[in-house]
């Protein structure tokens, strides 16, 4: 089972460049998320989606954009990379029910902006 797949694993960007982090899940989950984790810090939610065609901002959305054209895919776009966006990015997915939700994470994408 692939679960949640993220690409690329590692990337170095120059300031001002743009890139897209790809995320795909094969569990037919309705919810998908993008988190970032800075050194020594917890997980901060960037954007999330409750289903195809629906996205919403998390705690730290500035500098990012997302789209959800299919249930499976949830790419994260950085338009003008800044050093503050150097971080580890995790894509995740879940069912969401009234009784609780367990999130499944991808392996992470390490991004350095120089």
């Amino acid at each position, binding site marked *: 089972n692939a679960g*949640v797949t993220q690409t690329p694993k590692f990337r170095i960007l120059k300031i001002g460049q743009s890139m897209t982090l790809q995320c795909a899940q094969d569990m037919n989950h309705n*919810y998908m998320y993008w988190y970032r984790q800075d050194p020594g810090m*917890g*997980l901060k939610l960037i954007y999330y989606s409750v289903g195809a065609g629906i996205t919403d901002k998390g705690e730290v959305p500035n500098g990012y954009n997302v789209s959800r054209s299919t249930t499976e895919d949830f790419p994260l776009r950085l338009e003008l990379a800044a050093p503050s966006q150097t971080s580890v990015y*995790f894509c995740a997915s879940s069912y969401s029910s009234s009784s*609780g939700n367990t*999130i499944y*994470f991808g392996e992470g994408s390490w991004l350095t902006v120089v």
Partner: protein
Amino acid sequence: DQQVKQNSPSLSVQEGRISILNCDYTNSMFDYFLWYKKYPAEGPTFLISISSIKDKNEDGRFTVFLNKSAKHLSLHIVPSQPGDSAVYFCAASALRAGNNRKLIWGLGTSLAVNP
């Protein structure tokens, strides 16, 4: 405002002993709690969860205890093994309008199990 707090950034225990990781929360509406484990260079993986209708949930060497009156939960690992060395995140959620949930994360506790 940190709604989910893991006050110990790190913990060190001897192999074979019990590891106790603590988590406090402030929102009384939280009714579902999870623990995740994270190894370096990997994504977090789900470990164990508990609903607020229970005060204990057990899965092998891992047990989570929930004390709703104290707004406190703990993860017990018995016996601890070197492979348990990782960062452990506590997370909590409450049912919101629209019948959906949002997980609130603690900052994590780094556990080192020494041989």
